[in-house]
């Protein structure tokens, strides 16, 4: 019975999301909007139902995960008429990967890295240079690029990681702008034009520009990247959840909350922050690398400070230090301005507003970090 409830709830969310994305005419759009509001209000007014749902999801965690995975696999089928929305869905999944990396730094360790865009850019540009200039195959470049983000981050920031307070935030903001200026002016990175014609991914002879078909249904070519991003986001989320629910997460949380207490318990602050910084930058760089092969080119405006803010708002919306929160935050925040085109021009304003409202009224985020239970 509870199992049915879990799957019915997941199916309902899936249906609402797909309807919300695909409804073009005012009437269906309004109907979907009404359904979403009705569902939200219903859950608010019926705490019994809410509790039953939560209990069902807790009791059937594995089944819920399996159901969610199945629906995630099926999403391109539902979106097959729109290559654009398939692309947006893939982008949201890239932001899950990036968000998990950044959340380890900002949320778990309190290392306020506002250079997310630059580290993603290091991954993206590395892919561009390794493929176009050095002639590497795309998959190898995608695997190598995150290490560039890790190494550059380590070399530049080790002296600053030790400082307390907001130095790091200021220095990382400066770093994003410096990164942009450099990319605009270096000859070997293509200046303002960036690097074009990045070859697409090719796995086991399958080029990602070919249209895949699933269950006999032909999907847009971007579905390739959707599935690649889905695998990457799932693996990243699994790895970060395991790291969070282990000595590392515990140590980083402690040094975030009280450095003196942490030191007196034998925690090396430098080592802890450096670990968080490197692991985080790896996944941020990985997201940027896959972005580069997905869109086929990189240029400075793709990695400007605005994207650092997008990444930050993903974390704040979802829930600081919360692994499922990052997934929720990315899946909500990336598609939203795409859906409402009139919002698109004001997207940074929207993100800024969302951050302020969340910090004022729900600082723990939509899906707050849970207590570690080590199981």
């Amino acid at each position: 019975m509870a199992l049915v409830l879990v799957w019915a709830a997941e199916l309902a969310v899936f249906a609402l999301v797909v309807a919300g994305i695909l409804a073009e005419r005012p009437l269906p759009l309004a109907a979907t909007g009404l359904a979403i509001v009705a569902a939200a209000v219903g859950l608010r007014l019926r705490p019994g139902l809410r509790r039953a749902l939560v209990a069902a999801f807790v009791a059937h965690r594995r089944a819920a995960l399996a159901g969610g995975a199945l629906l995630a696999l099926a999403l391109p089928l539902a979106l097959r008429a729109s290559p654009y929305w398939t692309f947006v869905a893939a982008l949201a999944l890239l932001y899950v990967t990036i968000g998990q990396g950044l959340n380890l730094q900002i949320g778990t360790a309190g290392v306020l890295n506002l250079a997310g865009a630059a580290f993603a850019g290091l991954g993206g540009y590395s892919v561009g240079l390794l493929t176009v200039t050095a002639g590497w195959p795309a998959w190898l470049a995608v695997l190598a690029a995150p290490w560039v983000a890790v190494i550059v981050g380590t070399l530049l920031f080790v002296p600053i990681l030790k400082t307390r307070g907001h130095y790091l935030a200021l220095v990382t903001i400066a770093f994003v702008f410096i990164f942009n200026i450099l990319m605009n002016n270096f000859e070997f990175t293509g200046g303002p034009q960036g690097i074009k014609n990045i070859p697409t991914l090719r796995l086991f002879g399958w080029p990602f520009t070919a249209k895949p078909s699933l269950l006999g249904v032909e999907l847009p070519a971007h579905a390739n990247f959707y599935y690649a991003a889905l695998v990457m986001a799932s693996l990243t989320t699994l790895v970060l959840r395991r790291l969070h629910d282990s000595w590392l997460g515990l140590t980083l949380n402690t040094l975030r909350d009280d450095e003196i207490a942490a030191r007196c318990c034998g925690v090396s602050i430098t080592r802890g922050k450096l670990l968080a910084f490197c692991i985080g930058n790896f996944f941020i760089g990985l997201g940027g690398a896959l972005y580069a092969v997905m869109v086929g080119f990189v240029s400075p405006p793709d990695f400007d400070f605005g994207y650092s803010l997008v990444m930050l708002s993903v974390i704040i919306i979802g829930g600081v230090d919360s692994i499922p929160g990052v997934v929720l935050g990315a899946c909500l925040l990336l598609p939203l301005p795409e859906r409402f085109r009139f919002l698109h021009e004001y997207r940074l304003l929207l993100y800024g507003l969302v951050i302020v409202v969340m910090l004022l009224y729900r600082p723990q985020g939509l899906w707050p970090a849970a207590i570690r239970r080590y199981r």
Partner: protein
Amino acid sequence: MSLLEVKGLTVSFGGLVALDAVDVGVDAGETLGVIGPNGSGKTTLFNALTGLYAAAAGEIRFAGRELAGLEAHAIARLGIARTFQSSRLCLALSAFDNILIGMQAGRRTGLLDSVFRRGKLLAEMGEALERASHLLALFNRDLPARGFERVGQLPQIDRRRVEICRALASRPKLLLLDEPSAGMNPEETAELMRDLQIVREEMPGLSVIVIEHDMFVIEGVSRRVVAFNYGRKIAEGPFAAVAAHPEVREAYLGRETARA
């Protein structure tokens, strides 16, 4: 055998000499009481011992090693654990997490185990949680059941206990307690003194230094006492002798007349 030997320890902040050529020693298994009026340098002694403050002069030998120049986390790993005068728990984390952090220096699993050998990690975590429960139960049998609650939700006295458990979790050789009864009412203070008795009985080999502001609280806990005033050690010996020492009486009475 002497576990800790402090000789000529001097700590100053600008022109203020917070500790002035202090000698202190603690034997293995001994409990030493430290008393002294406000600002007499008691906490500064702990901060110097744990590597938070650098000494201007003097030496600190602990278990045969010189501690000068070691970082705080390295000193903690040698076996000195402490609590703080005003609580330094991570209120957003669970009581168990606050205790487990004390055990992380002795962990046997690394990052790769956390990701790829989950069973091994969870087994170790299970043992750690069990030990944390055991430590909590020493002080309050109902506390382990609340171990997964955020520590900020526990009453003041239980938070103090969690902090002591965190210090004990690292299996230290020397435990430093900075005014454990600070902010407690008389009943709670009595309970905490009983808790310290329990620690003594459970861990007979452990050396303890307890700071207490109120010199009569210390009577039940430690046999040997040192008294500070203005950064200098003014008396040392059995409690009765120290309490009767003219300079100690003057330091405390002087404070009381100043207050009146």
